[in-house]
């Protein structure tokens, strides 16, 4: 058993500590946010926050994310009633096509906005998201959404 703190709750996972975190989040904890993409840390679809830092949950061992570390997924960021500014901005900019990469984009951007918001440039957003891949070609909309969120309060 490995004890996890995910989105403010505690859960015990019956899996080997060497198990990639993504499988536990998705299959044991039934969280949809983190998406399994390349499983090699190259695409960013599985990005979650561990202690506020973005990590690839496909390349993070369950044991390394165990409590007292704190894991946040897309579900923990906001809800339809209380959306995170990034979630609201992705809707406002219609910044998705298939949406498979969206969770990873938002989590990576959440870490960026937690660091800095003022004076954020397109180039800085692009650099921060450079290892999050989108095959539909929504990059320009994603950049606009992140800049829109950066202008909002309460990040």
């Amino acid at each position, binding site marked *: 058993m490995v004890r996890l703190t995910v*989105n403010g*709750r*505690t*859960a015990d996972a019956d*899996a080997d500590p060497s*198990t*990639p975190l993504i*499988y536990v989040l*998705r*299959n044991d*904890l*039934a*969280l*949809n*946010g983190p*998406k*399994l*993409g*390349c*499983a*090699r840390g*190259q*695409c960013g*679809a599985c990005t979650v926050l561990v202690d506020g830092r973005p990590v690839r949950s496909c390349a993070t061992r369950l044991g390394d994310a165990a409590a007292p570390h704190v894991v946040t997924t*897309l*579900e923990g960021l*906001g*809800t*339809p009633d209380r*959306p995170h500014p990034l*979630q609201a901005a*992705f*809707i406002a900019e*219609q910044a*998705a*096509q*298939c*949406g*498979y990469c*969206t*969770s990873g984009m*938002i989590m990576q951007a959440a870490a960026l906005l937690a660091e800095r918001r003022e004076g954020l440039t397109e*180039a800085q*957003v*692009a*650099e921060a*998201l*450079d*290892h*999050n*891949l*989108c*095959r*539909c*070609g*929504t*990059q*320009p*909309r994603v*950049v606009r959404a992140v800049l829109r969120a950066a202008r909002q309060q309460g990040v």
Partner: protein
Amino acid sequence: MGAATLSRRGFAAILGAGAAGLAIGFRLDDAAAQQAAPQGPAMLRANPRMESWVRITPDGRITVLTGRVELGQGVLTAMRQIAAEELDVAPERLDLIAGDTAETANEGVTAGSQSIRFGGEALGVACADARATLLRVAADAWGADAATLRVEDGVILAANRRMTYAEAAGRVSLARPVDLTARRKPVAQQRIVGTSHPRTDIPAKVFGQQVFIHDMRPEGMLFGAIARPPGYAARLVSLDVAWARSLPGVVEVVRDGSFVGVIARREEQANDAARRIVQAATWRDGAPLFGGRGVFEHLLNAPSTTRTIHTTPAAEAQAARTHRVEYRRGFQAHASIGASCALAKWEDGRLTVWSHAQGPFPLRGDLSRGLRVPAESVRVIHVQGSGCYGHNGADDVALDAALLARAVPGRTVRVHWTHEEEMVWEPWGSAMVVRLEAGMSADGGLTSWAHDVWSFPHSTRPGGTSGCNLRSAWYLENPVPAPAPVDGPLPNGASARNAVPIYAVPGQRVTTHFHTDMPVRTSALRTLGGYFNAVAADMFLDECAALAGQDPVAYRLRHLRDPRLVAVLRRAVETSGWQPRAVTLGRPRVEGTQLVGTGVGLSKYKNSDSHVAVVARVAVDVPTGQVRVLGMWSATEAGRAVNPDGILNQIDGGIVQAASWTLMEEGRWDSRRMTTEDFASYPIIDFSHTPPIRSVLIDRPDLPSLGVGEGSQAPAGAAIANAILDATGRHVPEIPFTPERVLAALRG
């Protein structure tokens, strides 16, 4: 963690759909776009029952159905707009069912930019008929003239009377064939169609709600994985199945010939067991791919079927000179971010499959032949997947899941391919060679145009009437082989898609050299042959313009007769602020250590659909040959725009994807299989290489809606190619334009 937040949600809702039966033997594919004929939309003639399109019941529910499926292109939002418009009901009040073989119309494959043009028209006519029928009920009840009644959000209103659709539906049967003469609303009365209605699926995606097939978690679900042979032609000699069953977490091992799959309690256990089985099994290698030759050599020299499929009368004037060029493109992948996934469950000999394939009905047919069961015993339900951009592994994985689930009746098995599995085993977009030859008069005008294309198939989708186009069927002890591939005929074509020039040139000839033998399996990648044929043609046109001493825009205008193409060309150039200049071959445009140039691409997709012009500005780094796209501008006209923002999302997305194809993407292989199996060996464009894009849309409410989902790929690629020609003065004949190839051209 609280059970409430971790409940297995979503699945019950998907299972909850009813099971009104509808089975029609019918096929449509990419290559056979159906024109709306005078006797009504083709989709309605093939699927005439009203209840296949719209159901309005006395309980007040309004259900809209479409055989088209959501691929991330926003089609279900557009369908909802069309239905809401014709029914006069708020879009969010409609229940929507898409792509379920037990419920919806058989609309073949959601592909070829045909959903709105054909499926949307059919849905619109069915909804218009439903509305008119209910209005007549109210008119008869009130002794009123139906023309004096109006509808507000599903309530029929007269001066001092009201009747809900539910009430009217209780007095008439809508379970009948659609009246094909029903008239849709005139454009002037449309209030929902033509607006940028927000995508209905995006909120769920940004909040992590259950949307994707990968997120389905029915109670007791097991995880499957396939132990793939080391090469396409390799076959299994021996495997210790008892040992394989003893691997951690393994519930069952299925071996049928060279097909080996494993079912486990946990996903990572299934994947790990499959990996170990591949290593432990003994395999027999097949012949080396392409006989050890390069693919272009293979395309040009191995036996193929040559057919001249298009000619026009020759010019009266003699050519003063002839220009000839060969262009090449390697294999390219769909490279979805999320690999293909399916769920399958057998119960009492009946199979239910959840799939993100583009064609639920065609998939059902191939599943039935691959599994040797009647089609009626198989139900395929579409659930969204990661964007596919054509025929990727989505269909194949459904057979994998079904083959495994058969070993554990009553339990659902989910198979989610690994990304490597997708890249190696999915059908690739065909490598192609195009040779162009034109005659030119003394004043530079084109006097003839010959386009020869060498290609593997561009559609080996499920949906035939025999054989099985699902990969694992070929590896069974008693295999079900694939049917012989066919090339799609003109006007829309497959290997020859967009090979007929959009320019008014006499003496046209289009010839295909079609290979049906596929050492690397190929199928539909967004636009089929359209991207490369049109890119090659537009590159060639710029070279002809340079030889004629004219700038690329003036030279295009000289050869254009289609006013819609002229309009988008002028608009894109105007938006970009570019002042076109004639290219001088061999003379670069130097700015510091860079060569900077601008180019244009122009296309009418499939020679029948959206009109798109793209301008690109690039910088070429002289020491390295690296191409950087500085900016792109586009103009699109596709008739009536149902959802303008949805169109711009598709156009811009296509431009970004085409930039990636054109500059970066190329599959490689060894003697056994494709080896470009991850995003390191097969990189796709990232944020910092995505250019700024400015796109404008020309709405033509007076004209029918045209397909737009694939419209920008070719002109975007051509614009980049022609900007490189403008910058360098050099011809770079092979896509992708890697630094090595550009450098070779600069030194050549």
